[in-house]
């Protein structure tokens, strides 16, 4: 019985081996050097603390590789990437084993191990090629619109396919020479061997083996050498972004420590290093763009090109010799930056955990610092600074909505359980005021003890922060925290997810739950469940659809409470929209868009309204004043006010209270 092994590097000359090892070494070196040049630019960036421990980083990567948490969102891509990745890893391990067997005193490549390993390696190769096939199908035949093809992408695919194919070829030629029966485990190679034997004479087989080995080796060297060029580098770098996956709630914006007399200009040094890394790590898959509401409405913003724009910035800076520092603002226009609604769909969708909209906000922060702010944003920001609300209303009007309601205000002798935080929309905007009025009535009906802050309440600073004036946000944070502390607030309820997000995620440091903040949907759910609110019942079916507010759902993970409130409404029949829960589509009002000039060929809110209409519902329930205002504006623009009602869940509950 012939020994179950093979001669390692059979038919391979020393020169060839030298080429392989030397070439690989130089190629890796080249890649490393190129990467180093880029890291030098990254390192010039502003500090960024991910708060990730190495253990956590590994955990993140492993979880990502095995769990494929993003799998359900795009099954095809998940399978494709898994096949390529795992195929590649198996082949890499196989090749490494070959190298170890050959160059080290270790010998293990025989017997059962050999058989099993060979079979696995072949399977890996098949998986690898199958994955690539899927990629080619999707990119060139099926033409997924979001995927942008370029010469680099084509080149990588050709290169990888070629590596896979030549790998099988050289194996086939090798086996064909001797054709040992145990090599049947290398099912592809063995098959090919049979084929080759029938096609070419036995004498030319070793030569063909040498040729295919050399081509394979050369291609591998090229791959290693090109591993850190454009697009190729995502294969390596995306692992780092996965490792550095942010731990915070996606609604919590990153800190932006300000330095005195600082005038940013959009250079790499003005950006956080992580953002530069993110740019390089982008897989260009375009999933962010495909879900971006601004892009969908034909606005200038395309989140992928923001991320890639930063990579381009690194390109330009590495190429720059005369000391001129290129600026992100030469690559990314202001218009794009002001189009973002900070809905977070991009962040949720990104397969490699790139912080997409944070970059936009950081760049806005720079624009604000140099005064490059659109006129509408300026009105709003000046309004915030001088009048404590982003609508630029008179501060005296803050309590006008509650005229006649005799709202309780904080008093030292009576300690109310809840502070009802109204928010600026609920205070100033007519259509949101009815939410506030409904909530007051509900709280009273349910005998919940509460106070409101009246004129002491101010904007939480959310619009200031998202429009980029960080210090202005800090001012609001300081004064509001002081107010809340002064009255000894313990539990806060608000109907505004933006207020919720800011109060809950951005006001208090982690691990310091001085007060808890809940959304009114959560309180309403409890009140209904506990029977403190008796709702009417009805035999008639009333089709209702629920629009998930970004800052409640995606950013703060609350999807069920509002739905359970809707379900408790008389006759309610919940019809989900095509995009719901985590995948919900923005109303177009966040991130300052409520006050900014609208651009683009369509309106985000109009798109969402159309989607809601498709459900056949006669009521759109929302749980955010911004969503209500935006969708109402869409419906009045379309002249559909009478066809579909847009109501906050509080309004719906208030209407349904059994009287």
């Amino acid at each position, binding site marked *: 019985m012939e020994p179950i092994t093979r001669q390692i590097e059979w038919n391979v000359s020393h020169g060839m081996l030298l080429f392989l090892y030397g070439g690989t070494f130089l190629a890796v070196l080249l890649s490393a050097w190129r990467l180093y040049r880029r890291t030098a630019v990254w390192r010039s960036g502003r500090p960024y603390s991910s708060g990730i421990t190495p253990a956590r980083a590994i955990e993140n990567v492993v979880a990502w590789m095995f769990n494929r948490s993003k799998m359900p969102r795009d099954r095809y891509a998940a399978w494709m990437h898994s096949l390529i990745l795992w195929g590649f890893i198996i082949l890499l391990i196989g090749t490494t084993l070959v190298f170890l067997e050959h160059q080290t005193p270790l010998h293990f490549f025989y017997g059962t191990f050999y058989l099993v390993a060979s079979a696995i390696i072949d399977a890996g190769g098949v998986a690898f090629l199958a994955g690539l096939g899927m990629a080619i199908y999707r990119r060139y035949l099926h033409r997924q619109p979001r995927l942008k093809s370029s010469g680099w992408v084509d080149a990588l695919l050709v290169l990888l396919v070629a590596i896979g194919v030549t790998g099988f070829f050289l194996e086939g030629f090798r086996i064909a020479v001797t054709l040992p029966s145990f090599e049947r485990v290398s099912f592809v190679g063995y098959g090919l061997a049979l084929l080759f034997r029938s096609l070419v004479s036995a004498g030319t087989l070793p030569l063909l083996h040498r040729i295919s080995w050399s081509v394979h080796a050369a291609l591998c060297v090229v791959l290693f050498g090109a591993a850190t060029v454009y697009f190729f580098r995502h294969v390596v770098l995306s692992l780092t972004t996965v490792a550095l996956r942010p731990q915070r709630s996606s609604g919590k914006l990153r800190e932006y420590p300000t330095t005195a007399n600082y005038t940013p200009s959009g250079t790499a040094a003005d950006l956080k290093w992580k953002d530069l890394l993110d740019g390089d790590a982008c897989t260009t898959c375009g999933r962010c763009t495909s879900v971006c509401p601004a892009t969908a409405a034909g606005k200038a913003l395309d989140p992928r090109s923001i991320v890639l724009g930063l990579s381009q910035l690194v390109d330009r800076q590495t190429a720059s010799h005369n000391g001129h520092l290129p600026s992100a603002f030469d690559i990314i226009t202001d218009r794009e930056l002001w189009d973002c609604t900070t809905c977070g769909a991009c962040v949720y969708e990104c397969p490699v955990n790139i912080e997409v909209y944070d970059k936009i906000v950081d760049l806005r922060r720079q624009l604000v610092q140099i005064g490059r702010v659109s006129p509408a944003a300026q009105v709003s*920001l000046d309004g915030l600074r001088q009048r404590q609300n982003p609508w630029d209303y008179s501060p005296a009007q803050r309590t006008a909505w509650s005229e006649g309601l005799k709202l309780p205000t904080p008093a030292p002798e009576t300690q109310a359980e809840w502070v009802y935080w109204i928010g600026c929309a609920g205070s100033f905007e007519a259509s949101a005021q009815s939410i506030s009025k409904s909530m007051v009535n509900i709280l009273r009906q349910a005998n919940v003890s509460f106070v409101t802050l009246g004129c002491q309440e101010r904007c939480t600073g959310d619009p200031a922060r998202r429009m980029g004036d960080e210090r202005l946000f800090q001012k609001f944070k300081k004064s509001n925290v002081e107010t809340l502390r002064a009255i000894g607030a313990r539990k806060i309820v608000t109907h505004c997810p933006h207020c919720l997000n800011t109060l809950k995620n951005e006001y208090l440091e982690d691990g310091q739950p001085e007060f808890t903040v809940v959304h009114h949907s959560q309180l309403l759910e409890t009140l209904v469940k506990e029977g403190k609110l008796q709702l009417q019942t009805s035999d008639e079916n009333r089709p209702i659809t629920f629009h998930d507010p970004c800052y409640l759902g995606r950013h703060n993970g609350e999807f069920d409470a509002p739905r359970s409130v809707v379900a408790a409404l008389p006759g309610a029949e919940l019809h989900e929209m095509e995009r719901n829960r985590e995948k919900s589509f923005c109303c177009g009002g966040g991130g300052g868009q409520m006050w900014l000039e609208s651009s683009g060929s369509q309106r985000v809110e109009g798109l969402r309204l159309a989607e809601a209409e498709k459900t056949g519902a006669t009521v759109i329930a929302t749980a955010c004043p911004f969503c209500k205002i935006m969708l109402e504006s869409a419906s009045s623009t379309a002249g559909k006010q009478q066809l579909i009602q847009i109501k906050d869940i509080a309004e719906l509950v208030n209407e349904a209270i059994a009287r």
Partner: protein
Amino acid sequence: MKVLHTTPFKIAVCLKEVLDARLPLKVEAKTGAIQQDAPEPVVTLNPADRSALEFAMQLREQSPGSRVEVFSVSDVAGQAALWYGLARGADDAERIEGSGKGAPYTAALLATRFHKETFDLICCGDETLDNSSALVGPLLAEILDLPQVTGVVRIVECSKSSILVERGLERGSRELVEMDLPGLITLKAESVPWRYVSYQKLEEAQLRNIPVRRETLPTSSNGLPKWPEQATPTAPRARVKKSFTPDSKMSPADRVRMIMAGGAAPQESKSKSSVVEGDAEYVSEQLYRFLKHHEFV
């Protein structure tokens, strides 16, 4: 705006912090105090002054080496305007305190400062949100014997020796004028789009110490208009616009008839109008002749 010579300019900008009168105001009936209907008063840099500041800063940007200094006649609370000026990038700020109240005194106090140092250009807001007198600019120019252009809505061109601006006139008309420098312009609030000043810059400016100059004016200040010391603010009461009123001596029936007819006297006949008809060619020619006769074409 075009800057023809990049020689450095020395520009002074006069600023005032005002009660934001775009918000509802109340006049306390008993004391005559003007109060904002707000939990705490909202004050702001006078919008027209903000345009003056903005224009000066843009001029400085385009002519390197230029200096912009901001001035305000005010008490300590009024230095917020100067802080804003510094935050926007002004090189220096000075607050002036002095005796007397009212626009003429403000102009005179500012003039004492500008007598000491010559500026190429003095920029003021056209009118303040509070007193709305539009006086300080012209008076300052008068005291300093400078040429002036008030009510500027656009700046076209600036050179070391002259400035070319558009001033807004009645009913949408404008005119383009050229003024020799040194001189003084007053800008309308909407003349220059403002650049945003971040809160960080404001906070940083607030750390700066603003020097105060104390000036005393002679009590009989010649070369100033008299300015009444006693003035009572009241809630606004629109002036009654006359509309036609039938004479009480007419009979009740005629009075009612006139009112029903919207003011036409009962005996007044319908206006005699000539109505032409015919083919389009003919009537359009007749119409043309009518318009021509009355010089509308």
